[in-house]
């Protein structure tokens, strides 16, 4: 495969306006799966959390997990969405070995939540991201392709299938097209995914761990010449496993698309895989609008018609919206805007808050989490939140430092 010609990011933006669309899958943390009573514990022995329903055995039938519906509605409300008074599941039909029924029970033209928005902050500016829909679906199993160089099904000697994940409830959150100043696009994409993570954690509906796949982002991107109204052809980058990768994937795709367009070429509509190692993407499978999943309403499930009174009860359980919480914490901590931006930008808000709660002073907590830890995280390409240190440990180290029994440098060596 030829190496794509890349145009420098800044140069690309002089000629093209990026248009993004983000699809985020959130794995719910319900105790049981979407349509059966199997447990959802992460990391169990392969094929030990399965039953006739999630294995798609002949004759088995799905029953909706009420807790998943509740989580879906709370997510929808937190995204300022309308909640459907009546909606159905639909079958998305395609063959793949890790999908037990060879159709995915999902939602199609009747999502549980639609028409919402969230506001995200980048460098002090607020950007409104419009949400098209949030719908419910079941996860697939996991394939492990053994042999071959790519780790993909093509070229593999054999594949192992683990159905523990099959049937775990997912919420797919789809944005409308996002057009922000091109130089801000990568950061806005990252801030949006980060915001969703914070929201999911605050709602308590998901572990929202990108490294474990409980929050997964697909980045759709196209370019159009500045001033043009018609959208260009998009690519859909999958396998973006950290907030930083979201940002890098957007940057890379802008450079790649610009290279193709500058040379008079056409962008291929396809899925692409993001590579953490070098921040590039490579071609996956061709994808067209004509992909025919033969959706039709799922006849094995009754329609979902949430009682409006219940929806209002759920609205009352929503946590403080992240933006308001940030303002409140800033006041409580006595930080200036720049301090807060640093913390939020590093994805360390919750960690600092919890460390303060565990007994540290705000200034020390900030210093601790934004110091060498953040640099280490950056080196490893991971997010601060994904590191193994806990806020309690942070607070402990802080107290020891205060007591003069250790210092920051020693504490870091001890990690």
């Amino acid at each position, binding site marked *: 495969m030829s190496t794509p010609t890349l145009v420098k990011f800044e140069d690309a933006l002089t000629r093209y306006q990026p248009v993004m669309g983000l699809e985020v899958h959130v794995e719910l943390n319900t105790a049981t799966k979407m349509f059966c009573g199997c447990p959802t514990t992460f990391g169990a022995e392969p094929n030990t959390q399965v039953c006739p329903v999630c294995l798609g*055995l002949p004759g088995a039938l799905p*029953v909706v997990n009420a807790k998943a519906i509740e989580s879906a509605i709370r997510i929808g409300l937190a995204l300022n969405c309308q909640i459907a008074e009546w909606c159905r599941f639909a079958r998305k*039909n395609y063959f793949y070995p890790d999908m037990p029924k060879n159709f995915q029970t999902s939602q199609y033209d009747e999502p549980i939540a639609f028409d919402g928005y969230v506001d995200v902050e980048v460098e002090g500016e607020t950007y409104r991201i419009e949400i098209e829909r949030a719908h419910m679906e079941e996860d697939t199993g996991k394939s492990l392709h053994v042999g071959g160089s790519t780790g993909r099904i093509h070229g593999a000697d054999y594949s192992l299938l683990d159905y523990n994940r099959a049937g775990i409830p997912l919420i797919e959150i789809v944005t409308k097209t996002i057009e922000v100043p091109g130089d801000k696009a990568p950061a806005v994409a990252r801030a949006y995914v980060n915001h969703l993570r914070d929201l999911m954690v605050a709602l308590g509906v998901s572990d929202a761990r990108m490294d474990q796949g409980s929050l997964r982002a697909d980045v759709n991107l196209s370019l159009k010449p500045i001033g043009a109204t018609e959208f260009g052809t998009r690519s859909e980058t999958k396998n973006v496993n950290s907030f930083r990768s979201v940002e890098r994937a957007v940057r890379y795709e802008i450079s790649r698309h610009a290279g193709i367009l500058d040379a008079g070429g056409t962008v291929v509509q396809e899925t692409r895989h993001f590579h953490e190692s070098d921040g590039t993407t490579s071609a996956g499978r061709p994808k067209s609008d004509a992909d025919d999943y*033969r959706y039709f309403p799922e006849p094995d499930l009754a329609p979902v018609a949430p009682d409006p009174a219940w929806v209002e009860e759920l609205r009352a359980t929503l946590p403080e919206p992240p933006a308001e919480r940030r303002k409140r914490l800033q006041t409580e901590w006595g930080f200036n805007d720049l301090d807060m931006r640093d913390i939020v930008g590093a994805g360390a808000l919750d960690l600092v808050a919890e460390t303060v709660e565990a007994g540290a002073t705000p200034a020390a907590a900030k210093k601790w989490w934004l110091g060498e830890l953040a640099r280490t995280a950056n080196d490893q390409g991971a997010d601060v939140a994904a590191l193994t240190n806990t806020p309690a440990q942070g607070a402990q180290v802080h107290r020891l430092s205060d007591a003069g029994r250790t210092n920051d440098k020693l504490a870091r060596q001890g990690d």
Partner: protein
Amino acid sequence: MSDLTRFTAAEIAAALADGSVTSVEVTRRHLDRIAAVEGDVRAFLHVDRHGALATAADVDRRRAAGEPLPELAGVPVAVKDVLTTVDLPTTCGSKMLEGWISPYDATVVSKLKAAGMPILGKTNMDEFAMGSSTEHSAYGPTRNPWDTTRIPGGSGGGSAAAVAAFEAPLAVGTDTGGSIRQPGAVTGTVGVKPTYGGVSRYGLVAMASSLDQAGPVARTVLDAALLHEVMGGHDPRDSTSLDMPVPPVVEAARRGDVSGLRIGVISELGGEGFQPGVRRCFEEGLEMLARAGAEIVEVSCPSFVHGIAAYYLVMPSEVSSNLAKFDAMRYGLRVAPEGVDDPSAEQVMAASRDAGFGDEVKRRIILGTYALSSGYYDAYYGSAQKVRTLIARDFEAAFEQVDVLASPTSPTVAWSLGEKLDDPLSMYAQDVATIPANLAGVPGISVPVGLSEGLPVGFQFLAPAMADDRLYNAGAALERLVTERDGRPFAAQAPELEVTR
């Protein structure tokens, strides 16, 4: 002692209760009968002599110990091979599932077991319940006990033939477009498709989820009601199961009183395409009912003429999706494609599906895949769903005027084996009178009403959803009138099968 296989289920239950026979005796007699006539009838795919006798012995022991038992405890039953069982294979009449044993019992099967009913075996069927003759079984056709050169109907020809041939007093069938009622009609047995959602579908290997419904097959209306009561009721494992009590079907079957009952004859069903002999029997049935005090009126259901067209879009659409799971990855037949070294998963799926499915199944998968395709969805699946709504409205309007609707169950008597095998459209047309009930989710019963050319003719009643008891009331009345006219039970008129032992 007279022949226990000639007893009705109600008579067997009474004899068991008063201690004049044991379940082991009854069950053994039926197993012996199966051994004697199966060579001709071929109703069963699997016979479970050991399991059935073990259940029977257990029930006898519990009865002897004075334990209170369900009414049908100890009465043997046959189960269509489309319902999952942990102790017997479940093949659905397909090579795809040859030898497959389910790790779980269908809810209906669990209920039979809980009721203490020995399961004699699993009955033959058209592959994945697709067909009207049982000739589409991958394991060869079942023969009609009334004439073994003829088809026993389908897809549940095995269950109907087993009951008609006195191999079982009761059987469980499933009805997606008529697969209980049409075999009932052509084998002179009683078959009921309950209200959609009245009987759990959990463990019923789906053909078309929105149409499938399990129901009883018996030689009398009362027997069907007794089995219906065992099978029916809410199941939390089936989201489409109705959370309502089973209608009072047994009481209705014991009543059998049509005086003052308004019976609507569906003007769209019974004319063109219906054999004269079938029409004659149906009309005679109406006359007897009228003499017994029923009020007969004609009712028009104009959308019913589109029923077959709508059915043959909705059903295959669901089939195309429901049967996608048979891909050789986790269970069932796996075939390596010929001439391919190191085949891909996709190639194995394709080769296995090619080898494992018969022509009729493939035909419906292709039809349904096409009907759901983007660009065709609205014209085919979408339009069919609209017709479905219109048919449901026709039923609603009709049931404002009458208590039950009536028609011949099937346009013809049993045809000869092989006669329609190469003519799928003619086979599909056999479902014209039974399909509307599936599309609208309402219940239906077929009751034997007479003979044409020496072969049974079925009379169908249809009732509003959850008014299954009306079927049993009307059906029992008609049954009594027919028995009085003939001077003996209908089933007793079947010619003797040659006993090969």
